[in-house]
């Protein structure tokens, strides 16, 4: 009797463990240390998305506006999830959205934008993922809010409804 009780109890305990970890898997990258992002943005040169011309980061981030650098890719599933929020953010007057197309096939990326519509004001491509490394990105999607060449906020993983509102609030201060 006692053994039965004990074994059920322990099994239950591990079942709870399992469920929690299972659920935890759904939102990976949960551990983000709370660093104040007043860091300067890195300088880089990159190719424009649909031409072979190159652009300097200085030409993209001009001082007084707010910029959102969004790292995305057509193969990235959570990117689809955050897409509607990016479309919403596009309506913001003093926010420009810069899309960094990460390690992607150009045709797939174009199809992706056609299918879901294009939220980006400027599109640059990062064929081999080096620019993402310079930004210290962990993966795709990842988003940086930039003002006066400084990173105000870094979002690891897809933008959610709450995060979208937070961005709107920050840009309207």
């Amino acid at each position, binding site marked *: 009797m006692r053994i039965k009780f004990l074994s059920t109890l322990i099994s239950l305990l591990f079942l709870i*463990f399992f469920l929690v970890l*299972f659920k935890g898997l759904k939102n990976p990258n949960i551990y983000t240390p709370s660093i104040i992002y007043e860091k300067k943005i890195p300088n880089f040169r990159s190719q424009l998305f649909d031409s072979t011309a190159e652009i300097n980061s200085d030409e993209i981030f001009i001082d007084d506006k707010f910029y959102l650098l969004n790292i995305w890719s057509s193969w990235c599933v959570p990117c689809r999830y955050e897409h509607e929020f990016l479309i919403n953010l596009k309506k913001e007057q003093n926010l420009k959205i810069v899309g960094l197309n990460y390690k992607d096939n150009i045709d797939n990326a174009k199809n992706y934008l056609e299918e879901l519509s294009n939220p980006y004001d400027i599109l640059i491509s990062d064929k081999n993922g080096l620019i993402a490394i310079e930004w210290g990105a962990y993966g795709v999607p990842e988003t940086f809010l930039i003002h006066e060449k400084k990173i105000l906020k870094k979002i690891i993983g897809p933008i959610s409804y709450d995060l979208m509102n937070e961005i709107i609030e920050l840009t309207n201060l």
Partner: protein
Amino acid sequence: MASLIGFYSLSFGVFTSLIITFFSVKNFKSSKIIDNRILYFSFLQFFLVLISFLGLVISFINSDFSNETVFNNSHTTKPLFYKITGTWGNHEGSLLLWLLVLTLFAVIFIFKSKRQPIRYRILTLLFQQIIIFGFFIFVLKTSSPFNYIYPIPNEGLGLNPILQDPALAIHPPILYLGYVGSSIIFSSTLSAVVLNYISKEWAAHIKIWVLISWIFLTLGILLGSIWAYYELGWGGFWFWDPVENVSLMPWLALTTLIHCILVLEKRSILNSWVVILSISTFTLSMCGTFLVRSGILNSVHTFANDPERGLFILIFLFSLIFLSIFIFFFFYKKNSKENYTLFFLSKETSIVINNWFMMYFLSVILIGTIYPIFLEVISSERISVGPPFYNKLIAPFLIPFLFFMAIGPQLKWIKSDIENKIYLILLFIISILLSLIIARNLNLEFLLNTLIIVFSFYLFFITLRNFLTKKYKNLSQNLAHFGFSLLILSIIFNNILATEIITNLKVGETFESKKYKINFETLSKKNNQNYQSFVGKLIIENSEGLTEVMNPELRIYNQPNISTSEADIKTGLFADKFMTMNIVQNQEYFNIRYQNKPFMIWIWFSVLLITTGGLISLFKKKYEN
């Protein structure tokens, strides 16, 4: 070509797994002698995985970028040594290595267990085969190292420069030998429970595996720590990073297991301890794999962020846990001797007390590591657990822990008196006096630190005396405990006495403080095979006028284009001098960080002493003969 052979070889390996399982079940039902086919196929399985692994290594050496793993992690300009070690410097390759060691250990087990009962051997192999099969499917299904890409790229993406370090090159294989060794302990324990074979004989036989896993795990952790110190440039050796913690947890369980196995071998008690610890050691190793590979945690080690992989390991891990729970509750019979009474003054009592302390340390680390995940899931609140949590919860309990470590080995089995009372008390007084003198000179403000120093010295002196009086008796235990006291002392003095200066300097400038004068003399540029480097020349002058030249380095790798800062470390017998240099964006200033870290080398050395203790024990026929 090589990766094609590798792929087919790996796929055939799965079938050998099924064949071995089939023969084992058949053999288990009707057995007088072990079926030779099990042996042949186990060997074949190992051989196939070995071919597959070599196939990957050759792909890496030839820079065959049609292989996705090679493309993602290698580059033609990489030195040959790092091309080879790059094989296991990534998720796919490291899992293949894991599988290789698993199959190798299964073969070794067959040869090493000849004197054991046949049914026990077969059942162990059967459990081992379940684990091997799980890993086969995992590798093939979610992380195949042999994915083909077309068109073939001309150049690979390169191995992360921070992984290009000799200590890190051998760190994964050594650590894996430890982790995987615990799989044999796991399988063997389950089969011994089913067959009711938890006994002195079994303890003597499995002890070797416990010791081997423990030695490799210890060395693996040591190498990881050395890498973090020399390469990461943060100036520390242990950061309580979740991934460090998941290697420390199985180590704690394994260390406790060693002590329990010895008691089991000697007195036939503590059976339940042994069973539960054996199961948890392997489960914790698997749990580590899950946490690292699933991307559920963010840390320096997180390479893969593929939820499918995480899901597979999670399900596999919990299947093994439920299997163990089932076997434990339905087959485990308590030994009649298990209703023992422990006399309060005996060796086994002190072992049991320290077992509980170890379990406490283990729980603290476990909670610190997985609690943030639970909190996030339940309340979507994010927290990070840092060193202060671990230090505050672990440090105070080191005091009684050290005390029992010192006293325990002086006692006899079953029932004893305290012998040599005078020495024990005398040494204690000496330790107190010595610590007080140190505390006064260093102006220690924390009582806790002083107390830890007292008890570390106590352990230190007692073990030292044992070397002199007992000579070779119990040498392994004494050496390990001596090493531990040295380790705690080095860590504590390292913490207390470390000094640090952070400043921004440009070439030609001088920084002055009370203790040091730092002069930034020159900066020179060098070109190397796959990186460019800037080497600074700085002259440190301390208050006594002694000078030292430090050459911290900045490296800019070509592929991937990452800059790393190579610390210049001058290792000395009593202190390390540590300097890093970083670029300050868009300015001619460099950020200079100088640290003086006492007793660093003693930390590595004392861990080596502890390991040597284990090694000696391995070569001894019987414990306390």
